[in-house]
C-alpha cells in the first residue's frame, strides 16, 4: 500500500509543481489499476523533459467514453476492446504495462504460498459447489496442509472493475460451468450458492479477507503483498503449480501470442509455459487513428516510448510487470503504421 500511496501522492505533487514548466501537457483518463505506475512514470518523465502528464483515474469505462468523445489525448482501459469496436470508433490500442491477480485466503495456520489451488477448483468455490475448507476437492491437492472444517466465504469486488473482468475471464476459460452460469464482465451476478461478500476496490477485498476467517478473495498482487495476505499457488495450463513471482508473471507475458492478436486484444490469462502464472492481465492505452493535433499525439507516443525504455524498474518497484521487448517492438511498429495525421502522414 505504501508504494501505491506514495505513487498517488507523487502524482498529485507533480500536478502541483509542473505548472512552472507550463509548456506541454498531455491529458489521459481511464483505468484506476495502472494509475500509480503512470503517476510514477509521469513524475520521472516530467523531471527529464518538462512534459506534464495529466492522468485522471476515472475507471476503464470512463476512459473509453472520454477517448471516444475526444476530450482526452489518450484513454486507458483494463479490458481491451475488440477489433470491431476499435475500427468502428477509429481507435488503436496497445498494452502499456501488466499486472497480475492472485487468490488470497485467510486460514489460520496456512501461510502464504502454502495452499495449492487449480482454476477449476477456484471456479467451484466461487460457484458455491465447494463450501467447506476440508472439502475433498481441496484436500486432494493439499495433502500436507491442515484444513479446518469451516465454511468458505468468497470475497469479490462490489464495484465494477477490470480486475473482476480478468478474474472472471480466467474462471470462464478453465470452467465451462462458470462460463455458462456466470460469464465474464467487470461486474457479474455472483452465485448465491456461495457465502459471498463484496468489497469496494482492491483495498476493500483485501480488508475483508484479512478480517474474515475462512475467506478467499482475489486482488492485484501488490495488494496481497502490502497487506501480508496469504496468496495461493495456482496450477497453470501446463499442469504445474507456480507461486506468484515476478518471473512467473513475466513468463506468462513472454509466452503469450501477441503477434496473432488483432488490435492487441489479448488477455493474458491461462497462457502456456511451465513457469507461467495463470492470472495475468495487461492494461491498455487507446488513441485515435487520425490525429488532428500532430504535436500532442507525438508527445503521447514519446511518453510511452520513454516508459517502455526507462520505466521497467519503476514499474517493478510497484509490483507491475513491464511489457517484454518483443511486444514493445510490435507496438512501436503499429504506432508508425496506424497513427496518422489528418493528412495521412505518420505521426511517429
Amino acid at each position, binding site marked *: 500500500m505504501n508504494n501505491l500511496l506514495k505513487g498517488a501522492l507523487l502524482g498529485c505533487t507533480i500536478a502541483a509543481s509542473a505548472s512552472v514548466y507550463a509548456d506541454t501537457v498531455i491529458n489521459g483518463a481511464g483505468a484506476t489499476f495502472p494509475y500509480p505506475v503512470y503517476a510514477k512514470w509521469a513524475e520521472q518523465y516530467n523531471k527529464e523533459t518538462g512534459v506534464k502528464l495529466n492522468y485522471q483515474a*476515472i*475507471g*476503464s*469505462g*470512463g476512459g473509453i467514453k472520454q477517448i471516444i468523445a475526444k476530450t482526452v489525448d489518450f484513454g486507458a482501459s483494463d479490458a481491451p476492446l475488440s477489433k470491431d469496436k476499435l475500427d468502428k470508433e477509429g481507435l488503436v490500442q496497445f498494452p502499456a504495462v501488466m499486472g497480475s491477480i492472485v487468490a488470497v485466503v485467510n486460514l489460520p495456520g496456512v501461510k502464504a504460498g502454502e495452499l495449492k489451488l487449480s482454476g477449476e477448483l477456484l471456479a467451484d468455490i466461487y460457484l458455491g459447489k465447494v463450501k467447506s475448507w476440508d472439502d475433498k476437492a481441496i484436500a486432494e491437492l493439499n495433502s500436507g496442509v491442515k484444513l479446518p472444517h469451516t*465454511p468458505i*466465504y468468497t470475497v469479490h469486488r*462490489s*464495484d*465494477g*472493475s*477490470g480486475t473482476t473482468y480478468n478474474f472472471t475471464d480466467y474462471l470462464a476459460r478453465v470452467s465451462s460451468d462458470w462460463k455458462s452460469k*456466470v*460469464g*465474464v*464482465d*467487470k*461486474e*457479474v*451476478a*455472483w452465485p*448465491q450458492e456461495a*457465502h*459471498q*461478500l*463484496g*468489497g*469496494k476496490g482492491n483495498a*476493500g477485498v483485501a*480488508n*475483508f479477507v484479512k*478480517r*474474515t476467517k475462512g475467506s478467499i478473495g482475489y486482488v492485484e498482487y501488490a495488494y496481497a503483498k502490502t497487506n501480508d495476505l496469504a496468496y495461493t499457488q495456482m496450477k497453470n495450463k501446463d499442469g504445474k503449480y507456480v507461486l506468484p513471482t515476478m518471473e512467473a508473471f513475466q513468463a506468462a507475458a513472454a509466452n503469450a501470442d501477441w503477434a496473432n492478436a488483432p488490435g492487441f486484444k489479448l488477455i493474458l490469462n491461462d497462457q502456456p509455459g511451465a513457469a507461467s502464472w495463470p492470472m495475468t492481465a495487461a492494461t491498455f492505452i487507446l488513441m485515435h487513428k487520425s490525429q488532428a493535433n500532430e504535436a500532442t499525439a507525438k508527445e503521447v507516443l514519446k511518453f510511452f516510448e520513454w516508459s517502455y525504455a526507462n520505466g521497467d524498474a519503476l514499474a517493478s518497484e510497484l509490483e507491475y510487470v513491464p511489457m517484454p521487448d518483443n511486444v514493445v517492438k510490435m507496438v512501436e511498429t503499429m504506432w508508425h503504421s496506424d497513427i496518422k495525421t489528418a493528412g495521412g502522414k505518420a505521426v511517429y
Partner: protein
Amino acid sequence: MTAISLRAFSWQGDDLFRRACLTSAGLISVLMFAILLSLCIGAWPALENFGIGFFFSSEWNPVTKEFGAANALYGTLVSSIIAVFLALPVGLGVAIFLSELCPVWLSRPLSIAIELLAAVPSIIYGMWGLFVFAPWFSEGFQVWAAEHLSELPLIGPLFSGPPMGVGLLTSGIILAFMILPILTSLIKEALSTVPKVLREATYGIGATQFEVIIKVLLPAIKGPIFGALILALGRALGETMAITFVIGGAQSIDSSLFMPATSISATIAEQFNEATGDMHISALIGLGLVLFMITFIVMGSARVLLRRKAK
C-alpha cells in the same frame, strides 16, 4: 426625498421582492420536474425492456443484461428503517435530557457535540464503520447473536448467518448515527415550543417530572416527532458513501440482517463508472428514478399525514 417618492420606491421594492421570491420558488419546481424528466428519459430503455418487472425482479446480471431493482430497493428500505428504529429512542432521550433534565452548563457543549455529528463527512462514517465498527461488531455482537438469538422463533432468522461484520444491520446502525443529529435537534426544537404554563400547570396538580414528560410533553409534540422521523428517513434513504462501505455489496435478498446486501445509492456509486453497455447504464438511472420516487412518496405522505393531524 419626499415621502411620496419614498413610498413609491418601497412599493416597487415590494413588488420586485415578491417577483424574485416567486421566481425562486418556481425555479425549484422546474428543477424538480427537469430532474424527474431526465431520469425518466435515461431510464426509459430499461423500463421499456423489462416493463413493470424492473421494480420487482431481483435479477441483476450485467453479463446477460438482466436488471431488476428489487435487491437494491430492499436493502435501501430495510437499512433505513433499521436506522430510524434505532435512532428514534436515542434521539428522543437525548432531546428530552437536553431540554428538560440537563443542567445549563452541560446543555450547550452537549448540543454542540450532537450537532458536530452532522458535520462529519459521510465517508468518514463509512471508513470508521468498515475498519473500526464492523470488526468489533462481528466479534462483540454477531458471534453472540448467532449463538443465542438465531434459534429463537420469528426473529431467529434475522440474526443467523456468518458473522462477517458488514451487512444490512451494520449499515442500519451506521445510518442511525448519521440521522441522530437531525432527529435530536428537531425534537429538541419541538419541545421548546411547548408552552411553559402547560408544564407548570401539570406540576401544579402534583405530577412528577416523569409524568409531565410522558403525559404532557410527548403527546404535545407527536406531530413534530413524526415529521422529524420522516426527515431523518429521507436522509437515510439517500445516503451513499457510508452505506457503500459497510453494506457488503452483494446483489441479494436474504432473511438475515447479518448478510451483505446492497442499496440503490451504493449500486449506482459502485457500478456507474464501469458500467458496460447502454442497458446497464439505463438500469442504473432507473434505480435513481426508483430512489427519487420513494423519497417523493415518503415526504409526500408525511405532508398528508401531518396536515390531517393538524386539522
